[in-house]
């Protein structure tokens, strides 16, 4: 009876479904396979530098203090992160660096270990589980008690340089200097640098305790020293953040203002001339198709580096995006409202004002606010090129690869900024759309 026919047709349907169900993933897998080789993923494992990752990770939450002994003059300098701004004034040192009477310097490490920087241009370090390491500069050569062969990978030795890395510290001996890095957790000098009188004082002490700097009140003084901290430069970072937001805001809003009237010219139902509409549409495509970053380069000839150039680049790109979105919104307007207004004898501009604008405003506002949030992120990148904002600080700090804690600081700030913009624009969107 009809059953067999029905069975057959159902079987056919399911065979087709199975082909689709397997075919699509198969195509994707094939593509991924191609990518696997095109992107040389097998070689990637070999190229990946996990020690770099470790350095990076370690550096994000720790800092190092350099103890440097000049092998020519014998001077010992202590500086946080080896930076001038983090140097301990001559003759002072943290309590774990102990000059000895014989001219040696004893550096205490965590876990009771210690390294002796010897006056004869050498050092001595008793590494637990390995033994004593002693090295000295003799003439132009470095001699040590280490064997020639079979060194562990945390020791790197050559006649001109010896480096030992162990347990939160690293010692390097070259002809010119002996250098010891000791690692500590935290972001040192985040609040105050060494030269600030407030360094080493707790919050409670500053807020409630006795006046620390006789010239200034505690809170004002502490704020000043914190805000103008030469190491972390909070004031400049804050300005950079603000500059990034400024670029995003000016670019987005400017684009919206420029795009709105142009969108009327390119909406099918409002365009006065079809040729004009076509032209404006292609202009939108062009503005959008050329990325903001390229606009930045083009504009930087005329306007030079700075936030305005970034804002204008965002403005140009977004005029294209908004133009397209707005004209789509305009093409979807409900003609009844316009007709209703028109039937009262309203002028064309009044028709737009009352028949069209109230309809499209919610769409416009929500799009603009969406873009404002995503442009905050774009502004970070554009700033890296045009020379402004947090993006420049971030990329430069990353490229010079010096202070990953600084990089971490910037990344956290960028994320917080974007998330704040996200919630702010979301809040504003709800608020405005309800009230409009």
């Amino acid at each position, binding site marked *: 009876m009809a059953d067999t026919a029905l069975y057959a047709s159902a079987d056919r349907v399911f065979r087709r479904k199975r082909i689709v169900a397997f075919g699509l993933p198969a195509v*994707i897998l094939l*593509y*991924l396979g191609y*990518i696997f080789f*095109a*992107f040389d*993923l097998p070689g*990637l494992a070999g*190229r*990946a*530098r*996990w020690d*770099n*990752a470790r350095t*990076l990770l370690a550096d994000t939450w720790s800092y190092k203090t350099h103890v440097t002994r000049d092998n020519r003059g014998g001077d010992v300098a202590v500086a946080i992160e080896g930076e001038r701004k983090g140097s301990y004034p001559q003759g002072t040192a943290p309590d774990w660096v102990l000059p000895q009477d014989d001219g040696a310097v004893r550096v205490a490490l965590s876990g009771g270990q210690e390294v002796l920087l010897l006056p004869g241009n050498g050092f001595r370090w008793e590494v637990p589980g390995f033994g004593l390491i002693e090295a000295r500069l003799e003439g132009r050569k470095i001699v040590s008690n280490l064997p020639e062969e079979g060194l562990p990978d945390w020791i790197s030795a050559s006649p001109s340089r010896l480096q030992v890395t162990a347990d939160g510290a690293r010692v390097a001996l070259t002809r010119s200097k002996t250098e010891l890095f000791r690692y500590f957790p935290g972001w040192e000098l985040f609040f105050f640098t060494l030269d600030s009188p407030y360094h080493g004082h707790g919050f409670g002490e500053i807020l409630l305790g006795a006046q620390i700097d006789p010239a200034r009140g505690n809170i004002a003084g502490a704020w000043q020293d914190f805000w103008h901290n030469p190491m972390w430069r909070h004031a400049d970072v804050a300005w950079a953040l603000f*500059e990034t937001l*400024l*670029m995003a*805001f*000016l670019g987005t*809003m*400017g684009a919206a203002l420029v795009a709105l009237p142009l969108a009327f010219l390119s909406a099918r139902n409002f365009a006065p001339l079809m040729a004009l509409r076509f032209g404006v549409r292609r202009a939108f*495509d062009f503005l*959008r*198709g050329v*990325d903001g*970053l*390229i606009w930045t*380069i*083009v*504009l930087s*000839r*005329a*306007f*030079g*580096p*700075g*936030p*305005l*150039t970034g*804002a*204008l680049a965002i403005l140009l790109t977004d005029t294209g995006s908004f133009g397209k979105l707005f004209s789509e919104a305009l093409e979807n307007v409900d003609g009844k409202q316009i007709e209703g207004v028109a039937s009262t004898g309203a002028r064309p501009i009044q028709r737009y004002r009352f028949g069209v604008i109230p309809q499209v405003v919610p769409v416009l506002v929500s799009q603009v606010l969406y873009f404002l949030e995503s442009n905050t*992120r774009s502004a*970070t*990148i554009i700033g*890296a*090129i045009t020379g*402004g904002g947090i*993006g420049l600080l*971030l*990329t430069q700090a*990353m*490229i010079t*690869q010096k202070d990953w804690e600084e990089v971490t600081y910037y*990344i956290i700030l*960028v*994320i917080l900024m*974007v*998330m704040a913009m*996200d919630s702010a624009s979301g809040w504003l969107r709800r608020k405005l759309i309800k009230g409009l």
Partner: protein
Amino acid sequence: MTQTPDAPHDPRGHYLALMAQRRLYGGITLALFVLLMVSGFMLADERNAGGFWNGLPQVFDFPADVLADTLPKLAALPGHFVTYFPALVETINIAAVSTLLGAVAAIALSLLSTRGLARWPRLIPVFRRFMDILRAVPEIVVALVLIFVLGGGPVPAMLAIALHTAGALGKLFSEVNENADLKPVEGLSSVGASWLQSMWLGVVPQVSPNYFSYALLRFEINIRASAILGFVGAGGIGYELRNAMAWGKGRFDEAAAIFLLLFLTIVVFDQLSSHVRNAMISSKKGGH
């Protein structure tokens, strides 16, 4: 149509007061906006190396230089197209793979963070925050970090864009999910289907057209993003463009060729995706 309890006794005064209040708020908002725009513009103008009004007449200097350098060497352009085509393919591949991987992750994340669908309802805020963070980190940051670890090339860019895509699409997808009809899911649960089954059979078929349309839009964005990441050393066409552009006079013809290649690609994919999306929308409207 019964008497509302808060109906005003004096509709005229009531309305005028309301109007005055609305006008005041509207006026304040408008004034605030204008003030922000004007002062923001002035500040940016002041902090910029070149002023807006001085720079305006020079806007076309750079394009003019490019043209002046390119026009005499037009014959070399096709050669440049061929030279840089592999880089373009790499850029498109980066965008495609990252969109694919990001979209898959986004589907999982969005299902896990939609009320009514989530496997572990308590963890919804966790997944949401996670997506927020993925979204907030600029691709360039992830790419630079990964370049440091993995070395240059397409993989860091691909991962960076994929992570961002997962966050961005995840949010859009979960909005789509929120509007999905829960009845089929309940129906499937009632037959004893597992979570995966009810999502795959009950939710995904409903939302896949929307997913697809958002993913296409994202693909378009990602082509641009991968070109941009080339600017910071992640390979592809952006890298070539930056080098040619930075050199300036003497290699502007290369820059122009790369630019044209990139621009045409973006326009082609843009048109293609809006075409597909339109087709999809109209087929959805036009019955089954």
